[in-house]
C-alpha cells in the first residue's frame, strides 16, 4: 500500500497545476482561519459585516489604513479577508449537504433500479428543468434575502448533479462480479452499497464536489447581482463585486480610476475558484483508474 500512496503523492507534486492549486488553497485556508487576527472585527458587532469607514458611497483609493481601498462606504480589505470565511462556509455547507442528498437519492436509484430509478430520475429531471436563478429568486422571496437563505436555495437545487453522476457510476459498477459475489454471500443491500458500491464510485463525486466548491462562489455572486444573496456591506466577494460593477467603467475619462474596487475582490474570487478547479483536476488525473499514465 505504501508505494501506492507514495505514487499518488509523487504524481500530485509532479504536476505543476496541482501544486498551484494546493498552494492557493492552503493560503486561503490560512487566511480563513486567521481572519480575526488579520482583520480584527469591532467587538459586539457581527464580524461578517464590513465596518463602515466613510459615508460617501463612491470608492476611495487604497490608503495605509485601508490597503485595498474603500468601496460602498466599507473597507475592502476587511471584506476580502472575511470573504474567505464566507466562501468556505457557503462552499462547504452547500456542497456537503447537496452531495449527501445527491448520494442518497442517486445510490438508491442506481442500485435498486427499475421503479425506484424511474421515479427518482423523473424527479431529478424535473428539478433540473427548473432554471436555477428563477428558483433561487422565488425561494429568496419566500425565505427572505440574506446569504444563508440563498445557501438553502443552492442546496435544494444543487443535489441533482451528484445524484445523476453517482447513479451513472453505480449502474456501471453494479454489473461487476464483486457485487454479484457479495449478493451471493447474502450480504444485506445497504451494507453492499456502503462497503462495495460507494467506495468504487465515490471518486468522481469527490472530484465533482471539489469543482462545485469553486463554482458556488460564482453562483452566489450571480445572485447578489440579481439583488438576492448577501446584502451590500456583508463580507462576500460577490456582494463586493456587485457594488463595484457600477464603478467598473471608471470616471473622469480615466477608465481604470476605480480599479481596486474590482481587482481585489475579483482576484480573490478567481484565485479561490481556480484553486478548487486545479485541485479537482489533479485529483481526477491521479485517482481516475483509466488515467494511469
Amino acid at each position: 500500500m505504501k508505494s501506492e500512496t507514495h505514487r499518488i503523492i509523487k504524481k500530485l507534486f509532479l504536476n505543476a497545476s496541482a501544486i498551484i492549486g494546493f498552494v492557493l488553497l492552503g493560503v486561503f485556508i490560512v487566511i480563513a482561519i486567521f481572519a480575526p487576527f488579520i482583520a480584527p472585527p469591532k467587538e459586539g458587532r457581527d464580524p461578517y459585516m464590513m465596518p463602515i469607514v466613510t459615508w460617501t458611497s463612491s470608492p476611495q483609493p487604497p490608503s495605509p489604513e485601508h490597503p485595498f481601498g474603500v468601496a460602498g462606504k466599507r473597507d475592502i480589505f476587511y471584506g476580502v479577508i472575511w470573504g474567505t470565511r464566507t466562501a468556505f462556509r457557503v462552499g462547504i455547507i452547500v456542497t456537503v449537504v447537496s452531495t449527501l442528498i445527491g448520494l442518497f437519492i442517486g445510490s438508491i436509484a442506481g442500485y435498486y433500479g427499475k421503479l425506484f430509478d424511474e421515479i427518482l430520475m423523473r424527479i431529478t429531471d424535473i428539478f433540473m428543468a427548473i432554471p436555477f436563478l428563477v428558483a433561487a429568486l422565488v425561494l429568496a422571496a419566500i425565505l427572505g434575502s440574506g446569504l444563508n437563505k440563498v445557501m438553502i436555495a443552492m442546496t435544494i437545487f444543487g443535489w441533482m448533479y451528484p445524484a445523476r453522476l453517482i447513479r451513472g457510476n453505480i449502474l456501471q459498477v453494479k454489473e461487476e462480479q464483486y457485487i454479484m459475489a457479495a449478493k451471493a454471500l447474502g450480504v444485506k443491500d445497504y451494507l453492499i452499497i456502503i462497503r462495495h458500491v460507494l467506495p468504487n464510485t465515490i471518486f468522481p463525486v469527490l472530484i465533482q464536489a471539489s469543482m462545485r466548491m469553486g463554482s458556488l462562489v460564482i453562483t452566489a455572486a450571480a445572485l447578489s447581482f440579481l439583488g438576492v444573496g448577501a446584502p451590500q456591506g456583508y463580507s462576500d466577494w460577490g456582494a463586493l463585486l456587485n457594488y463595484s460593477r457600477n464603478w467598473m467603467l471608471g470616471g473622469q475619462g480615466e477608465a481604470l480610476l476605480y480599479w481596486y474596487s474590482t481587482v481585489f475582490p475579483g482576484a480573490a474570487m478567481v484565485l479561490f475558484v481556480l484553486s478548487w478547479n486545479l485541485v479537482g483536476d489533479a485529483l481526477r488525473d491521479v485517482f481516475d483508474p483509466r488515467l494511469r499514465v
Partner: protein
Amino acid sequence: MKKILVLTWLLVFVLGISVAFAEIKNPDTYVYLHIGEPDTLDSGYAYDNASGEVLTYVYENLISYDGVNLQKFIPVLATEVPTVENGLIKDNGTTYLFPIREGVKFHNGNDLTPEDVEYSFERNILFDPANGPQWMIIEALFNFQTLDDLVADKVGTPLTEMVDENGNLINPDDATKLIEFYQQVIDPVIEVQDGSVVFRLVRPFAPFLYILPKHAYWSNIFDKETCVEWGCWDGNADGWWKYYNVKKESSPLYDKANGTGPFKFTEWDRTQQKVTLDRFDGYWGEKAKIAQIIDWGIDEWGTRRAMLEAGDADQIYMPAQYLDQVKDLDDIKIESGKRITVTAFHFNWTVDKTSDFLGSGALDGNGIPADFFSDIHCRRAFSYAFDYDTMIQEVLLGYGERPPSVIPSGMLGYNPDLPMFEFDLAKAEEEFKKAWDGKVWENGFKLTLLYNTGNDARQTACEMFKENIESLNPKFKIDVQGVQWPNYLDAYKSGKLPAFVIGWIADYPDPHNFIFTYFHSSGVYGGPQGEAYINFAQENLNPIIEAAISETDATKRQNMYEEIQKIAYENVLGLTFYQEIALFPMKTWVQGWEFNPIQSGEANYNGVYKAE
C-alpha cells in the same frame, strides 16, 4: 480545418468596424435612457413617472404652468385660464368655466370638441382604478376619496358590492339606481355650455386648478370618438359600471394613444422597454424642435453610462452617487433641478402584532414592544440621533436641501424659519433615558430597520441610525436589512415595520398634497403609522387639514399649514431628511433643455434639440 472556421467567424465579426465618435449621432432623434418602462398609456390609470413622461407629450391638458413658474397658469386647450377676476370662477370658487379652443386636431385628424373634454373627465372618474390617480379629481369635485365611497354615500351601497369582478351587476335591478346616480351626481358636475366646459365643485377646493395643468397626466384630454371606437365607455348613462376598476391590461387605452400633443405615439417595444414618439406635424401650437424621441428603459447603470459616453444616448438617468464618474468628461454636461419631493423617516406607533421585526416584543434588550414609538421620548431621541447635514453633504454629495417638515421649498406653506430637528447625541441620550420611564436605557432594545435593496440613500440612512444609536448604549441594537421590493411592500403596507424611510413626489404643487398624504389619518402614509397615530391625527390634525383645504385665502392657508408643521415638530411625527436635487447628465450637443420641478420625466421633449 477547425482553426480556419474559428478565424473566419472572427473575421466576419470585426468586418463592420467604423469608428464613430465626436460628431453628433442621430441628429434628429433625442435618446433618453432611464430605468423601467411605462406601466400603461391609459391616462386614467397611469400613476408612475415612466408613463407620465410619455403621456405628457402625447396628450395635452386644459391649461399649463407658465414655463417653470408654478404659481402662474397659461391657457392650452382652454382659451383662457379661469380666475375670479375674469369671471370664469364663480359661486365662491365652486364653479370653473373653461372656453375650449377651436381648430385643434387629434393625431388621427379628429377635431377637439368640448364634448371630448367632458368625456375625458367623466370616463376617468367612472373608471377610478384601485391605486390609480383619480382620487385627486374625485376629492376635488365630490370631496370623497374614491368613486366607491361616493356611490356608497349617494346610492346607499358601495359600488364594489353591487358589481362583480368582471363588471356585471350582482343584482340586475340596481341598474336604474346607477343610471340615476350618473345622471344626477356625475353628469351635472361636468357640463358642456356653448363652446365651454363648466366644472361645479361640491365645496370650494383651493388647489383645483393645480390638478389640471400640463404634467398632471390624469387630466389629459382624450378624443371621445376614438376612445369609444377602441372599446372604452360609450358615454351613455347605462352600463358605465362595466368599465369600473377594470384590470389594467384590459383597458383599451393600455398600449394605444391618440392625443393632441406635440408628439404622436409611434411604438412601445415591450421587449426592450423602449417607447418611440414622432413629431406631430399637424400640431396646433408651436411644433417640437426634434423629430423623434426614444424613451428607453435600460436598468444597468454601466450600460447607460457607456452609451452616453459613446454618444448613442443624449441624456441618461443617474443616481446622485455616481456623479464623479461623469463629472469632468469633456463632451458631457450636468444639469440639476430641485424636484418637489421630500424623503422622510416615519414611526409606526402601533406595530402589527404578527410583525417579525419586533424581536422579543418586550423591552428586555432583544426586542421592542408594539407601541414603542407611541412614547414621544423615543421619537425625539431618534430625531437627535440622525446626522442630517452629513446625509446631505456626504451621501447626496451636497445635492439636497433640508426643509423643516414635509412641505418642500417652492410651494405655499413652506417656511424655512420653522423649527428643525438637530443632530445632538447628548440630547438623544437624555431622551432615551426618559423613554418608557427609564426602562429603555436600563434594559436596552433591539429593532430592525428595513430598506428596499438598490436604494443606496435609504440604506445609508438606516446605517447612520444604527451607527449613532448603537454608540450611545451597548444595550441598543439596530439591525439593518435589505429586502426585495415585494417583501418591503408586504412589511410596510401591513403595518409590520416599526419605522420606515419613504419618499413622496408631489402630484401637484400644493401643500395639501403633502400634508394630507403624511399626516391625515386616511392619507397614504396615515395607515402604516399605526392605530395610536390614527387616533392622534383624527383628534388634532384632520380638522385643521380639512379646514385648510377649503380656505381660499392664500395667507390664511399659509398660517394653517405652518400651524400643522409646528404640531408635527412638537410631537415628532416624522423626521424630514432632505429635498433631493436631481442631476441630469447629457451630451453637450443638447440645446433647449429645461427642467420643470413638477414634471415626471427629466426632459422637455418639445423644447430640446441637438446642435454643436
